[in-house]
């Protein structure tokens, strides 16, 4: 039987890379519930590709900023598609700007989408995993959670919160066969990091031991590993995928 994986923020960047790798995986067959606020062209193309075969990709439109809708969303997912094997909390906002002039509404939105939404999704999708006595929760963090970065203080706070959440939740649910981990990518060239350009970008690349940035595919591979049976004994930890930048 195929394993059902829920991926948030699936339309672009790392989320899309994760969805693609899940669908292409040959050893384990995954069905994917891709949650996104809007459908990107690439996601639509994938939907077309996988709707002609055995319909392994389902796309649900949802705005995770609407925290009050999350329980109903989870209930619908379980009712319509069955108990999920895994949840990948990837959706995030990445406003940058110095704190002193960041608007309070942006701080509020960022913490809602990056922290509260993954906590609520975990709460409600964890329940069917507990009943299955098996499951995976993977939270996408960032190296910024530990290193810090000028202009990303709120984003950094949100990612550090997600890591702290993951460590405690791992202790809570380990007995039920559910693992909880984080993947912390370094700078990747995605829509979210568009503002990192020119000399700043070159400097990040130069300082990396591998002389390059990690790609969304590199980070997605770490997620796929954590989903596998081989990662059964890994819980409450962070896998950094940054081409060595923080070494």
């Amino acid at each position: 039987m195929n394993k059902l994986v829920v991926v948030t923020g699936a339309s672009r960047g790392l989320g899309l890379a994760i969805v693609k790798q899940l669908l292409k995986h040959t050893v384990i067959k995954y069905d994917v519930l891709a949650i996104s606020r809007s459908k990107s062209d690439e996601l639509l193309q994938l939907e077309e590709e996988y709707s002609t075969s055995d319909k392994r990709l389902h796309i649900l439109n949802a705005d995770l900023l609407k925290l009050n809708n999350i329980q109903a969303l989870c209930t619908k997912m379980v009712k319509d598609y069955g108990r999920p094997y895994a949840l990948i909390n990837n959706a995030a906002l990445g406003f940058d700007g110095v704190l002193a002039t960041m608007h309070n509404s942006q701080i509020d939105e960022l913490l809602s989408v990056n922290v509260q939404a993954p906590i609520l999704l975990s709460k409600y999708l964890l329940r069917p995993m507990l009943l299955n006595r098996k499951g995976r929760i993977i939270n996408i963090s960032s190296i910024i959670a530990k290193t810090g970065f000028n202009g990303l203080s709120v984003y950094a706070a949100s990612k550090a919160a997600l890591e702290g959440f993951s460590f405690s939740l791992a202790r809570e649910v380990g007995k039920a066969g559910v693992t909880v981990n984080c993947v912390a990518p370094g700078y990747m060239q995605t829509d979210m990091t568009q503002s990192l350009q020119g000399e700043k970008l070159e400097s990040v690349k130069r300082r990396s031991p591998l002389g390059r940035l990690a790609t969304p595919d590199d980070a997605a591979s770490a997620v796929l590993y954590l989903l596998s049976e081989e990662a059964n004994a890994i819980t409450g930890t962070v896998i950094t995928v940054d081409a060595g930048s923080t070494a």
Partner: protein
Amino acid sequence: MDIESIIRKTLLEVAEMADCTLVDNIDEHTVLLQSGLDSLGFAMLVAQLEEDLAIDPFSEMEMAVYPRTFGEFVAVYRQSLSQRD
């Protein structure tokens, strides 16, 4: 089947699933934390009841409520079901 019987039946199933040994003669005065089911077991009980009854009284409540006894736990579900009907 009335709601108390459904909860009792589910409690037995979940206790087995969670490897917990329930105390004998659970009645309305039995303190939940002394029933033999641990906190993860209670999470599983709430999850199973949500799947079976399509209600989660604890999320529906405006305020956080933690029933202390088995009787209070049943009452929370009974009230939630009556509001749905």
